[in-house]
């Protein structure tokens, strides 16, 4: 089996980045089902390939300068940033004044990253973030200055069409200063169904006082791909992180979020919908830390399991001693459409404060027979009725979204 540390990465002349690469190598250890956080998600199926690092695009420059035509069009206006075949594309959107966009390398060279890079989590507890750090070099640094309300979403669009098994790591840092409002879209898609590749993405997000970040992610990798994503979010006073995730593709996908509600009034919403087909595994892991009083978290995760699909939900809510008045809710609902499909749900509440509200729930079941009958009694065929009900089930985590084009985009297959 390949050692994922040795994918043949190109050298870096940046001391900050090479220093982190060493720390990443030291911290990385491939997770096995013996590790509690990886008990239900076996990564073996994605390890049968020999992965390679991205091809260098040009000498002394890791940023992609190719004349790649970006064919993915989002059905709404956005500031589009492309990540193609393992590189950040040189073409960059014209951002309004007050919004800084740098490549990770540039940011590291200008010492912009020192306060943020790998500051929001522990490297030795996050194996794929450690691997990402061992491969460090690609990604963006974005800072939105105080008071700015971005008129269009920032969109990160990930494309891969290499003809070899590409292992692509990206490490992005998003800093929202106080009283900013930003919509942030992530889109993963592969048009070629036969490619094997892996995306390993770490996003570190820092929200200043009263900042609002709404995150919309649609993951439509192809059915041979590995998709490993980790969002580490720190939320300061009265700031809010809302995340709406639609996981549809990949052979194995793990979408992991850690939200640190650091100061009073910090809030988060973590909603997700996933759909497993064939022998795919979709893992949604969330770790919410209520570190301060009057912090709120809400999670609604819904999964549709077909064929021999496997769903995993691990949700931890930790309420620290100072966090009186905290409110944390979590609900996972599974719709089982096949006898061979399985779902593993592991909720965990760790409560160290009094006067808090905290709840979790999990349900699983089949389609409602009475609803099916009702639809059919109006002339709708069995298959179409099932499809309507399944879609209705999956759309719920996005039902409250006010941005209609984005809501429809997330709900679309």
């Amino acid at each position, binding site marked *: 089996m390949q050692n994922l540390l040795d994918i043949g990465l190109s050298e870096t002349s940046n001391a900050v980045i090479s220093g982190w690469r060493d720390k990443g190598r030291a911290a990385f250890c491939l997770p096995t089902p013996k590790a509690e956080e990886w008990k239900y998600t076996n990564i073996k199926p994605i390890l049968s390939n020999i992965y390679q690092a991205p091809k260098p695009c040009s000498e002394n420059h890791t940023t992609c300068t190719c004349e790649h035509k970006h064919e993915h069009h989002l059905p709404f206006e956005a500031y589009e940033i492309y990540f193609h075949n393992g590189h950040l594309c040189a073409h960059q959107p014209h951002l309004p004044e007050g919004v800084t966009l740098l490549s990770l390398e540039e940011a590291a060279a200008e010492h912009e990253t020192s306060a943020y890079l790998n500051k929001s989590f522990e490297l030795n507890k996050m194996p794929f973030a450690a691997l990402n750090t061992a491969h460090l070099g690609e990604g963006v640094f974005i800072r939105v200055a105080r008071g700015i309300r971005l008129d269009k979403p920032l969109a990160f669009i990930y494309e891969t069409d290499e003809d070899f098994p590409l292992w692509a790591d990206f490490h992005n840092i998003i800093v929202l200063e106080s009283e900013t409002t930003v919509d942030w879209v992530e889109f993963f898609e592969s048009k070629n169904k036969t490619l094997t590749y892996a995306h390993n993405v770490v996003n570190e997000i820092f929200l200043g006082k009263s900042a609002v970040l709404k995150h919309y992610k649609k993951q439509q990798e192809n059915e041979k791909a590995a998709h490993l994503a980790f969002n580490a979010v720190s939320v300061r006073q009265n700031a809010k992180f809302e995340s709406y995730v639609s996981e549809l593709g990949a052979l194995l996908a793990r979408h992991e979020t850690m939200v640190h509600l650091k100061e009073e009034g910090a809030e988060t919403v973590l909603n997700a919908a996933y759909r497993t087909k064939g022998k795919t595994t979709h893992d949604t892991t969330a770790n919410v830390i209520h570190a301060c009083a009057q912090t709120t978290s809400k999670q609604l995760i819904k999964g549709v399991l077909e064929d021999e699909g496997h769903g995993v939900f691990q949700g931890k809510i930790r309420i620290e001693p100072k966090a009186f008045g905290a409110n944390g809710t979590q609900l996972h609902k599974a719709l089982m459409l096949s006898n061979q499909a399985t779902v593993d749900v592991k909720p965990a509440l760790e409560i160290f404060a009094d006067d808090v509200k905290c709840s979790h729930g999990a349900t699983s079941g089949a389609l*409602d*027979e*009475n*609803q099916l*009958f*009702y*639809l*059919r*009694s*109006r*002339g*709708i*065929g*069995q298959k*179409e*009725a099932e499809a*309507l*009900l399944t*879609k*209705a*089930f999956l*759309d*719920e985590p996005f*039902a409250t979204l006010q941005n209609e084009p984005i809501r429809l985009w997330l709900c679309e297959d």
Partner: protein
Amino acid sequence: MTKPVLEIKDLCAKAGDKQIIKNLNLTIMEGEVHALMGPNGAGKSTLSNVLCGKPGYEVLSGTVRFHGKDLLQMSVEERAREGLFMIMQYPVEIAGVPTVNFLKHALNAVRKHRGEPELDTLGFLKIAKEEAAKLGISTEMLKRPVNVGFSGGEKKRMETWQMAVLKPTMALLDEADSGLDIDALKVVADGVNTLRDGKRAMLIITHYQRLLNYITPDVVHIFADGHIVRSGDKTLALALEEKGYAAFVNEGC
């Protein structure tokens, strides 16, 4: 020449393990409105469910023909596409499915079956809104998920609207009056009366006579213990209201 729409012959059916329908015979011709009145436990709901093909009911013997075709061989959706529509006693709520979206699928399934072109969203909305306006249903209500958060009266109003859009050849009203106040009852009755066109057949299944104050039936049947014990004109319903079921049920056996 008028043709029969529904012909039930010697029908026996069971719900679960119990035989409920016992040798039922009933023929409804084009343009006719029949009322089937029965006490609790007579088998009224079983009959409407058997006619619609709801799972959980088994036909033991007998035949049901709908426009001359074998209704019992048809799937639930085929019956609807052939023109059978049931106003349900308890319409189910379906969160997440917008009402307009649902009925557009339904109408297009029916139109396809009839060999008519399917409608796009705009074409559908035109029909949907026209019919809704007649029933005092706002566009906002049509956008809401199917039956979610509606009162009993609003649900029946929406059922009537669905019927008006789908234009079935036969309407089956299963205890359509249960849980309705007088205003809602009138709306449903008006909707049903509007669809009386000399061709469309109707079967009103009910416990109480009061819906028949607003929809005048051509024929009234008293239904007890799984079959019809007496048939007559609309005056039979009034006599029933006055004397109660007991007076008729024993006589017929």
